[in-house]
């Protein structure tokens, strides 16, 4: 274990971990309000990446219904990222209207929302394939303008390399995390959010329009998911409509590891899993996919409520 390897792994882990955190926060927000996991979050992640791609590049490839159709304009990367995130937020709202609200209104078994959100995920993913094909899409190399692809420096004689995409990933994620934390702790809406999370009925009595609020939360969750998708997509390419599935699952591990419903927990969980993956020795790389779940399993056995989750006292 050389110092260079340590620093390299640390940088890699922090960068990917911060995106995990952004993505997982989308899960957490919904969970803290409805107590339900939104299985369509991974699909919104994918959708966000596709939307940003469409905005930044202007067209899709040769398969699918949109083959040959191109947008009359293209946007530079950062506006595209923001607009793509906004549109993904709208998709998040659609998920709420389609999969969650009808069930809530009918007072159905909460578990059923897992299945209906899965149904929406199925629709979204296959719709993407129907429209844009199953092809791989990658953002053009000059997506960030004239920046070099990587910066290399030396530690104790060994090279440590940081890719520009990684830095942007990390920076954007940090800004989003910081902004969200600030909004939740300081703004009126943030306080209301916490009130609804605490108790939906009380919040309704306090004059908060709960339905509207839930819709807003889904919007925010969609923005987070969609932007995380774009960030991962710019760094590694969009590997087709099933792009988000693996991340969706990993995101679940992140939020449970951190403690369900805990916002700092989601951030911590993301970083722990990102670092866990990065520090896995190279000759064990075939076990990488197991890292989040082994960590999750271990933490749950020691702390059933997750790292930062609150212990639920049974009320008698």
């Amino acid at each position: 274990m050389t110092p260079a390897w340590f620093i390299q792994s640390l940088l890699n882990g922090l960068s990917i971990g911060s995106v995990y955190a952004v993505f997982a926060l989308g899960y957490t927000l919904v969970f803290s309000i409805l107590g339900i996991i939104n299985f369509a979050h991974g699909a919104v992640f994918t959708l966000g990446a596709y939307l940003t791609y469409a905005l930044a590049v202007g067209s899709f490839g040769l398969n699918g219904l949109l083959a040959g159709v191109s947008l009359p304009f293209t946007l530079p990367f950062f506006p595209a990222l923001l607009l793509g995130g906004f549109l993904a937020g709208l998709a998040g709202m659609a998920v709420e209207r389609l999969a969650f609200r009808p069930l809530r209104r009918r007072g159905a078994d909460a578990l059923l929302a897992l299945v209906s959100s899965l149904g929406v995920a199925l629709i979204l993913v296959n719709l993407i394939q129907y429209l844009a094909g199953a092809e791989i899409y990658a953002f053009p190399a000059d997506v960030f303008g004239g920046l070099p692809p990587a910066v290399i420096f030396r530690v104790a004689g060994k090279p440590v390399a940081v890719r520009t995409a990684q830095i942007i990933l990390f920076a954007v994620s940090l800004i989003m995390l910081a902004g969200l934390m600030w909004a939740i702790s300081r703004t009126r809406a943030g306080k209301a959010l916490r009130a609804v999370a605490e108790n939906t009925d009380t919040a309704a009595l306090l004059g908060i329009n709960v339905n509207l609020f839930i819709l807003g939360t889904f919007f925010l969750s969609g923005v987070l998911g969609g932007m995380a998708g774009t960030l991962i997509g710019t760094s590694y390419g969009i590997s087709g409509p099933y792009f988000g599935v693996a991340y969706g699952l990993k995101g679940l591990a992140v939020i449970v590891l951190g403690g369900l419903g805990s916002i700092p927990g989601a951030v911590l969980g993301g970083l722990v899993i990102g670092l866990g993956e990065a520090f896995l020795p190279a000759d064990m790389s075939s076990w990488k996919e197991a890292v989040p779940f082994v960590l999750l399993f271990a933490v749950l056995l020691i702390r059933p409520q997750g790292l930062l989750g609150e212990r639920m006292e049974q009320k008698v």
Partner: protein
Amino acid sequence: MDVFFSSYGFLLAMVVQQALLGLSVYYPLLAGQLSLASIGFYSLGGYVAAIMGTHPALAALRESLGFWMFPLEWLCALVLSIILGLAVGLPVLRLRGIYLALATIAFAQVVNVTVLNMPIAGGAVGIFAIPQAFDSRLAYLFFFGPLLVLALAVAFRLERIGPGRVILSIREDELAAAAMGVPTTYYKVLPFVWGCALAGVTGAMSAPFLNTWNARQGTFDASVACLAYVLIGGARSPWGPVFGAALLVSLPEVLRPLRDSRMILNGVVLVLACVYLPRGIVGAFSSLSRRMRGVKEAAS
């Protein structure tokens, strides 16, 4: 009729096979425990059968046992599932609700990665050319059918006997059940392990059924599909997973004429089923029949 069975024989057997997986999720749900570990056990059971069926070291044993090799494979899968089920269930069932579900998903994922890393499991290609028990895939109903009958019989029988009521009481109110002298850990682990065993044996039967076995059998999608069978079918009756599997397994086939948009509609049906059949197919049937009876009584 011939064409029907030759075209849809596999599908029929598949429905029964998936219904078994649905039931393996249904059992722990009886005690209110949402476990998605089944698919991990299904995958492992399949590997047990696939390895026993193809490994050269066991050629002599296969030779001498003939058809009895299959029951031996089931037995081995059963024993492995029970041991592992206990090892996983005891610590994991302390968790509640969604935590439990996610811990069991984690378990299935870890199984998947582990299997990929075990040379005996054949890496990503998996194991193929697994000896067949029957000529026709439909005939595998002779494997799955009796197991389904057994699984259903146990489920219905449980509704009528003491231990079954005790299991249900945990779903209703775990704390009150404990205060009524119910050893809750035992009665949570019991249906969990039974579900694991069912999934394991189903896997062992499925390896020859599919003729090939690989790590992709144990994916997250498959886990969630099992849960969907139960919830769409109805979580309050053992028929639920059966009807749920019948609907969800045959749906993509029914939608085949739609070609590449069929999976979109599949998703739409899933959402609609959740919204309009909140108590599942069985729940909708029973309230319908209740209403019809009500109409009849009112008329007479």
